């Protein structure tokens, strides 16, 4: 089928198999491999994207369901020259080991901080409960979220 959707503010079209997940469409048809394919069952969160501003697992969205809708992926976060503050915080705290879960964890963190700029530790854990990491033991990811929250609120004060 011919699929047309807006991805990261750009209208894109592709001829896709009707049974494809949005994740498959993004990675294989639209050549945006930032969202990772790990579990294909919504367990791991490494394919997290925004669909019409809602955080979703793109592996659980039928590609056709994104017809005429807006998708935002991890690729939208960094500019050509600068990382997003959340990405910067993940680097600085060493929250990245193998890196496979990182795009999903970064996207989920950006979503959390949009809704709750100064999250409690419990709020951080709940917000990242759909993102599995098998390397870090999560402590450094939680550090990264705390640091990103502090950096972003400082940036707003400086703003």
């Amino acid at each position: 089928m011919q699929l047309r959707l807006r991805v990261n503010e750009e209208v894109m079209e592709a001829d896709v198999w009707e049974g494809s997940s949005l994740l498959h469409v993004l990675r294989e048809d639209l050549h945006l491999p930032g969202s990772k394919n790990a579990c294909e069952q919504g367990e791991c969160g490494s394919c997290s994207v925004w669909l019409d501003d809602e955080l979703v697992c793109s592996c659980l969205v039928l590609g056709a369901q994104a017809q005429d809708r807006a998708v935002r992926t991890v690729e939208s976060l960094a500019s050509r020259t600068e990382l997003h503050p959340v990405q910067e915080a993940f680097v600085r705290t060493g929250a990245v080991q193998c890196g496979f879960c990182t795009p999903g964890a970064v996207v989920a963190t950006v979503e959390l901080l949009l809704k709750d700029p100064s999250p409690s530790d419990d709020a951080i854990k709940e917000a990242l409960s759909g993102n599995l990491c098998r390397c870090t033991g999560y402590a450094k990811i939680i550090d990264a979220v705390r640091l990103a929250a502090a950096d972003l609120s400082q940036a707003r004060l400086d703003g």
Partner: protein
Amino acid sequence: MDVFIPEGLEEALEIKSRRPDCVPIAGGTDLMVELNFGRRHPGAMMDISRIADLRGVRADDDAIFVGAGVTYTTLIERFASVAAVAGASRTVGSPQIRNRATIGGNLATASPAGDALPVLACLDAEVILGRKGGTRNLPWHAFLTGPKANALDPDELILGVSWRPTSGPSAFSKVGTRNAMVIAVASLCLVLDEARRSVRIAAGSVAPTVIRLPAAEEATRDLLDAADAWDDPDAVLDETKLAEIRGLVQAGVSPIDDHRATAAYRRHTCGVLVERALRWALEERSAGSGA
């Protein structure tokens, strides 16, 4: 595979009448797993996630209606004051899953472990089914016919659920290996109907379908009557009677051994869950909310 993207309910029901084999997809949190793993190969699918008629929540004095396409994220927001609904919804999956998964999907999948189902059973909910030219309502127990089986006809869509509001506190309690992303090993919902002075208890993951536990309901009502607990929030409950209620719940369920837990563990858990839910509901009473 044919894909349909109806904009409205009438169009969707028309498609269903013409193509009963057409599989509706909303949140996709169950269905896409089947597709991704090649376990299902539908001849046709339709996206019902953009149909506004399926996404509404309406409440008046007599009835509450929740559209089949309402997500758990929305249920948590809209039913913040109904502990059983908000609590059960919050135990579903993760934020990503709750943003997509719908109450209609839980009914369609009809898993004995569906987190919304003990709540619907406690609320005596009706499931509203639609086909081109008509609708019908089925009580939850007539709709859920077995493990992963329901009474939906091939040309029908689940339109939503409705229930009569009750006045009084409620609670949902669930056991699994994590707080998130977990299918219930056992779950239990309890509703105290203060106006009728009756108690409703339903359990999930411990029988072929979600079940109500009438003997435990009566015993709990008797316990609250005897302790004058309906009127006195500080009433002390009789420990012997509480143990009897745990036993009645454990006797009323028929769990199985599977890869998630043994039947014996599930049976034990149900006793813990009923006491926990009762205490939570009684603690909530001073807040004075209603379902």
